[in-house]
């Protein structure tokens, strides 16, 4: 189909090389961090480590995973992610099913849609939201992390469009004639058929929950409740140990460069682990769910 001219062949070689460089550039920083985390502290502090560990050792990882504060934050992060994903995914799946109906089937659909799209565009802002969470008595509880952002309108729209394009109308009509109600249609027809879509949106939600750090920073006053992302933000980015009640030895250990690198890598690890599953679905999902002809 395409020309096999000399110029094009030269371009192809150059192009392949260039793209390879770009691809490698995207993971090189992670490899560097991994290499530092497995190196002995002396070469790490002397900035000798590039992309391979020097004097390979698990010391930094042992130090990190043996630290009570870090492990507690890790569990808080996992807990928050699981709870947040369940709440958010349930809420938006139910809503997306109802809103995927046509206007004439579901009176009031338009009103709900506008009400939900509006929150994607306009919000009260940081301070009024903070005051609300405070007045509801949610400060310093996990609910302040999982409830305010539960309705992710972007994910809801993705799912809604999946439901519209992925579920054959005839199947639904057949079920209706057989006397099935909406709940049964949702659970017996929509959910099994849309499993790939649910997995996609579920993984997106999980990644979002795991990565969230700012809400923990403002809504949690007790540092022992910090999820891992918030913990890493204060320890690694702000370099602030004042909120943790740790003794100076522990501070020194936690701020060691190799330990810092291990902490960063563990923070990225869940994402790296779910990434292969995520990648399998999201390309198709995003294109299908976001652009409608």
């Amino acid at each position, binding site marked *: 189909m395409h020309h096999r001219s000399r110029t094009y062949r030269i371009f192809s070689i150059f192009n392949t090389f260039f793209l390879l460089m770009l691809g490698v550039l995207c993971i090189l920083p992670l490899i560097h961090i991994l290499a530092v985390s497995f190196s002995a502290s002396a070469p790490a502090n002397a900035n000798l480590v590039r992309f391979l560990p020097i004097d390979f050792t698990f010391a930094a990882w042992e130090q990190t995973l043996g630290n009570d504060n870090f492990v507690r934050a890790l569990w808080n992060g996992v807990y928050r992610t699981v709870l947040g994903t369940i709440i958010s995914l349930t809420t938006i799946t139910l809503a997306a099913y109802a809103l995927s109906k046509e206007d004439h089937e579901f009176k009031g659909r338009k009103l*709900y849609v506008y009400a939900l799209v509006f929150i994607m565009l306009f919000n009260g802002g940081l301070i009024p939201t903070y005051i609300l969470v405070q007045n509801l008595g949610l400060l310093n509880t996990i609910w302040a992390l999982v409830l305010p952002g539960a309705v992710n309108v972007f994910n809801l729209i993705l799912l809604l469009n999946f439901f519209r394009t992925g579920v054959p109308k005839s199947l639904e009509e057949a079920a209706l004639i057989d006397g099935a109600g909406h709940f049964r249609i949702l659970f017996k027809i929509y959910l099994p058929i849309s499993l790939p879509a649910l997995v996609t949106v579920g993984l997106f939600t999980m990644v979002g929950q795991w990565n969230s750090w700012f809400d923990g920073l403002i809504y949690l006053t007790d540092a022992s409740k910090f999820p891992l992302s918030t913990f890493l933000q204060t320890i690694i980015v702000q370099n602030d140990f004042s909120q943790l009640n740790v003794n100076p030895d522990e501070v020194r250990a936690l701020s060691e460069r190799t330990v810092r690198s291990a902490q960063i890598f563990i923070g990225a690890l869940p994402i790296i682990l779910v990434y292969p599953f995520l990648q399998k679905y999201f390309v198709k999902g995003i294109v299908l769910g976001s652009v409608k002809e």
Partner: protein
Amino acid sequence: MVQPRQGVIRQIPKKKRKQAWNMKRNWPLHVLVMPAVLLAIIFNYIPLGGIIMAFQDYKPWFGFSGSEWVGFDHFRRIFEFSEGRQVIWNTLIISSFKIVFQLIIPIMFALLLNEVRVMAFKRSIQTLVYLPHFLSWVILGGILLDLLSVDGGLVNQMITSLGFQPIFFLGDGDWFRVTVITSDVWKDFGFSAIIFLAALAGINPSLYEAAIVDGANRLQQVLYITLPGLLPITIVVATLALGNILNAGFDQIFNLYNPLVYDKGDIIDTYVYRQGLLGGNFSYATAVGVFKSIIAFILIVTGYRLAYKYANYRIF
């Protein structure tokens, strides 16, 4: 025994009957949207009421009812404070550059990737370049602080080994902007390219065949078929991005900046955080936030209108 009710239903006028049927069959739909709507009302609509504090001199211990009204004073202060003007300017500069590069580079990347015929290679590259999008700015911030540090960060090691002076990436205002824009493009160019790759796959192959018959070389095919084919989706992405021009990336900047670069790196969102939650200037910070929201709202609505008009795009 329950009496058969068919006779009764037949007496109801047809239209009413249909409505009654609709309500009876569809009440579960209202139940299904309810959790989402209730959460939205509580956590998104109620805080909208808090916006009145932008017109008050809000004191937490007096509450909304007891605080003094000051009208538009806080909004005026945004423009009277040189700090406020500077923050708006920083936001516009940083996000304009981000929008431009986040449009050009993904398109170029998609075009180059589209020339690759070996599918396995293409997929591997895609896998690599999408990954940073899913890592948070806390993780990437931690990595960048390490990579870019002046004394011995990997990047500065390379720069000095080439014989240049080390660069204070995160401590010098101008370099800070460059760092922010570059790292943003680095994180997301692959992911942004997805939509362009999809559009490229959708271009009718017979157009290329016709062009080849007419003697067009590969470059001419790109110029006269591929690029015009990408135009509609480019318009959509550009107009929608414009609606986000006041979002210069809170997560990123918050995790990279420090007092040294406040003058050139502070954006509206980080300023609201520092003034409001840290500084206790609740009303002023809210006014800045409201100002931002209103402009953003107008831009987004206009953006969607334009995208719909010129590229027939709609969200659902």
